[in-house]
């Protein structure tokens, strides 16, 4: 991608961020500023992720997205979810992604501007289409006040393991993750017949 476009892109991002912050401050005060900040982080991170031609930079920009989403969770009063988001996505998954990305050889030519723009356009179109459909059909329940946030961890824990609560989806998710793990190991391993022991000759 042309390096000349880097500066305008980041300048546009900065402008959007400032705009979001201003809009937030104007409409909802401090909460608005926080919302604007986290939204800018989320959107900006994902945009950079698509834009940057360096895969590692893309991966790092995901950190902004994850943190922004965590902030949004925090604003919604789900602070357990917010912290879990940071711990699992940033601390765990992102570290793994980076580990994988850094091990893979760089392929700078892969991302062409046309492809990036095409992808962006496709994505925006899809979001707009789904959004219009959803906005037209779903009746949103809106309220001016949120319920008192319950952030008691033991309540969440009980809810996960309560037969009346979410034990089935919770266990199902665990099962699916285990299956995925086993499958990943299986795919990553060669078949036993492919594995030749390099020391077999020496032993013989």
């Amino acid at each position: 991608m042309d390096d000349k476009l880097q500066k305008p892109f980041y300048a546009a991002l900065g402008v959007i961020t400032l705009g979001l912050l201003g809009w937030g401050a104007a409409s909802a005060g401090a909460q608005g500023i926080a919302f604007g900040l986290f939204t800018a982080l989320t959107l900006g991170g994902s945009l950079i992720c698509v834009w940057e031609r360096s895969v590692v930079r893309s991966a790092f920009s995901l950190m902004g997205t994850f943190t922004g989403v965590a902030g949004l969770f925090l604003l919604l009063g789900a602070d357990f979810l917010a912290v879990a988001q940071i711990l699992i996505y940033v601390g765990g998954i992102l570290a793994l992604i980076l580990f994988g990305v850094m091990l893979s050889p760089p392929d700078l030519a892969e991302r062409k501007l046309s492809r990036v723009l095409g992808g962006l356009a496709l994505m925006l179109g899809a979001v707009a289409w789904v959004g219009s459909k959803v906005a037209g059909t779903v009746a949103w329940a809106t309220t001016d006040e949120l319920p008192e946030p319950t952030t008691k961890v033991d309540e969440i824990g009980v809810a996960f393991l309560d037969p009346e609560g979410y034990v089935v989806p919770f266990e199902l998710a665990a099962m699916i993750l285990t299956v995925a793990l086993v499958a990943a190991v299986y795919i990553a391993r060669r078949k036993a017949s492919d594995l030749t022991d390099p020391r077999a000759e020496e032993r013989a």
Partner: protein
Amino acid sequence: MTEINTPPEPPEAKTIEIPEKARTLPSGEREFMLDVSTSDLEVNMGPQHPATHGVMRILIRTDGEVVTGGQVHLGYLHRCAEKIGENVEWLQYLPYTDRYDYLSAMNNNLGYSLAVEAVMGVEIPRRATLLRTICAELNRIGSHLIAFGTYGLDIGAFTPFFYCFREREWMMALFEKICGARLTYSYIRIGGVFNDAPVGWLKEVERFCDVFEEKWQEYYDLLVVNHIFVQRTAKIGVITPEMAVDYGLTGPMLRGSGIDFDLRRDMPYMAYDEISKAGVYDVPLGRGEKGELGDCWDRVYVRVQEMMESIKIIRWCLGCIEDGPVIGDIPKVLKVPPGEAYVGIENPRGELGHYVASDGGKVAKRCRVRGPSFCNVAVLEKLLPGTFLADSVAIIGSTDVVIGETDR
């Protein structure tokens, strides 16, 4: 991202061999990531790198953490010692000998002096011989202390290094008292030694021996039998006896592989014949105690034990030293009769050989130095493939190279 602006690697890199079996680690661990295609990374370890003990450069090819090839590049400290030997007078060359293996300068002086004396056929006074022995063995201790301490650094243990330097400091103070220099002594001269030991010096050496024996146990307990240290060094960098002989390794590298050979005992020079026959000291050998025969641990163990054996030799010398002259009848301007001789002595790092050829003049015709590190370092290219990056550091450290000597 902009590429870093470095000149392209010289084409020598392609000579690295990547044996396919390198993927099996010497510890017997299964190869990993066989099917994930990773690209090899060529890393310059050195010329300035903490693990190369000077300015050696090792071009390492790595696949993740596994080293798949290594190539030793020498010459960053080449100071033309052999050419200088052909241009300065016999005695003037002596200070240059200090500078190839700067950690055991006394032994280098001794090797050169013995070689020149072998051509000249000079008689050395008894007191001079014993003083030479004491100094050489003290210097051997000092050299092994550095080898052992820096090896601890390579493995990641800092403290033994300082303990080693504490004793080495005393050793250097002893040398300072006898010859005025702390590192490059030029004390052992052709025909004897430069001057007699000052009053009370021998007593202090004895005290040093007493204290050292106590402190030695500290090193042993702190590092040599430390579990992590053993885990890091056992079964790593195994040099089989056949390999050791083939590569012409000498000194602790050879004995670490279990070959019972010590020039001091098997081809004695100076008073070592007498000392060996009196059964004063033993030759410590690698026995594969913690892992396999000839691994890094064995080599370190041999060095650590040798320090104690040196103490025994020093004590024996102290017991029988008598007053007398310390230098033979040597003219100021030395003329060496035509002839040639090769004398190899047991340096801390192995056989230090001096081949001197004279045409009867004041200047040598050829002054060849066979540095033990130069020969020992050749085995690295064989040992490095198939090890972890951290193991490669352990292996390089266990060869105990002194770059001054490989490059001369």
